[in-house]
């Protein structure tokens, strides 16, 4: 009896531990993908303002990162991953469809822009519209830490 209880307790705590680990894992993964967004976007921001020279290859690789990571990010916000070391707001899970929709829109915009941006003029016309979604999402779904 006592042994069975001990085994059960050990099993239960192992389960809880993996759940916690899985959760912090998911948070770490999505934050890493977001940081990649940040690193890809920073130099492009300089090009938008004219501080750094236009570089089509860098713009295209940023757009590739957007399309790839936006798809990868959708499953990284599972129900119940709003606690702990995260800047994700509970509103994500109250409006999950809207939240996921923003990632879909972002991926679609990035893919379209990848084809449409061929020179500096089209870059300056199209790119700001693509990254506007970053701010739109952060304003309603990311904590101001």
């Amino acid at each position: 009896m006592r042994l069975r209880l001990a085994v059960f307790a050990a099993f239960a705590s192992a389960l809880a531990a993996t759940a916690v680990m899985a959760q912090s894992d998911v948070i770490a993964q999505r934050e890493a993908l977001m940081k990649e967004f940040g690193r890809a976007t920073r130099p492009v921001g300089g090009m938008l303002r004219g501080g750094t020279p236009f570089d089509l290859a860098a713009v295209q690789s940023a757009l590739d990162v957007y399309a790839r990571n936006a798809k990868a990010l959708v499953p990284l916000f599972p129900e119940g991953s709003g606690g702990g070391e995260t800047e994700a707001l509970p509103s994500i899970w109250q409006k999950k469809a809207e939240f996921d929709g923003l990632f879909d829109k972002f991926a679609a915009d990035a893919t379209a822009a990848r084809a449409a941006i061929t020179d500096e003029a089209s870059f300056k016309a199209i790119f700001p519209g693509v990254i506007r979604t970053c701010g739109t999402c952060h304003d309603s779904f990311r904590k101001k830490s």
Partner: protein
Amino acid sequence: MDAPLSRSAATTPPATVLAWDLPTRIAKWLLAVLVGLAFASRYCGDGALVWHQWNGLAILVVLVFRVLWGLVGGSTARFSRFLRGPGAVLSYGVAMLRGRPPHFLGHNPAGGWMVIALLGVVGAQALTGLFTTDDIAVYAPLTNVVSDETMARASAWHQQIYPILLLLLGLHVAANLAHSFLGSDNLIAAMITGRKPRGTFADRDPATPGSVARAVGCLVVAIATVFGGIALAGGNPFP
């Protein structure tokens, strides 16, 4: 409100005395307008925040100017003249509660510390702004010289300090409106015209204005400090 200075009758003293010299008044109203624009530029579609950043740098220039002017400027602008100890603040508060506060030509003892609080909090907001990013495409002038952690912390502070600033500004405006329209001392008019009706003041009157040459000197030093400081630190002073 403000009786015109009569120069023809040299025997009758003017009905008003100088309270604030021109550089002090320009700095004060410029600061008010620029701080208003800082909020407006953030919330009214200046997507790249270029305007917000230039505006913030202008605020820093005015702040540095005002600190220098507090050392070498007109008599009522000098910190050494209007910053008084806790005893003076307390007795002013008591007198105010009794409804008979003494009149001051410059800042009263409570108001003097409010000026420091305002300058300090506006300064903290502007300084953290230099290290702030929106994590997307806007990176303020000094973001490239600090670590990502420092940048994130400064960005968070930039979002946490301005509610305190708004609170202080609310107090500041309410106190000045109350003094000017409920009390007998029109502080707002004095801060616009620079003059107060002749009367009995608890501090020295009239004020002696700071010299124009010194004001220009302070402005030049302020501009050099802000833009030169950012450049020396390795940042890009032109957002």
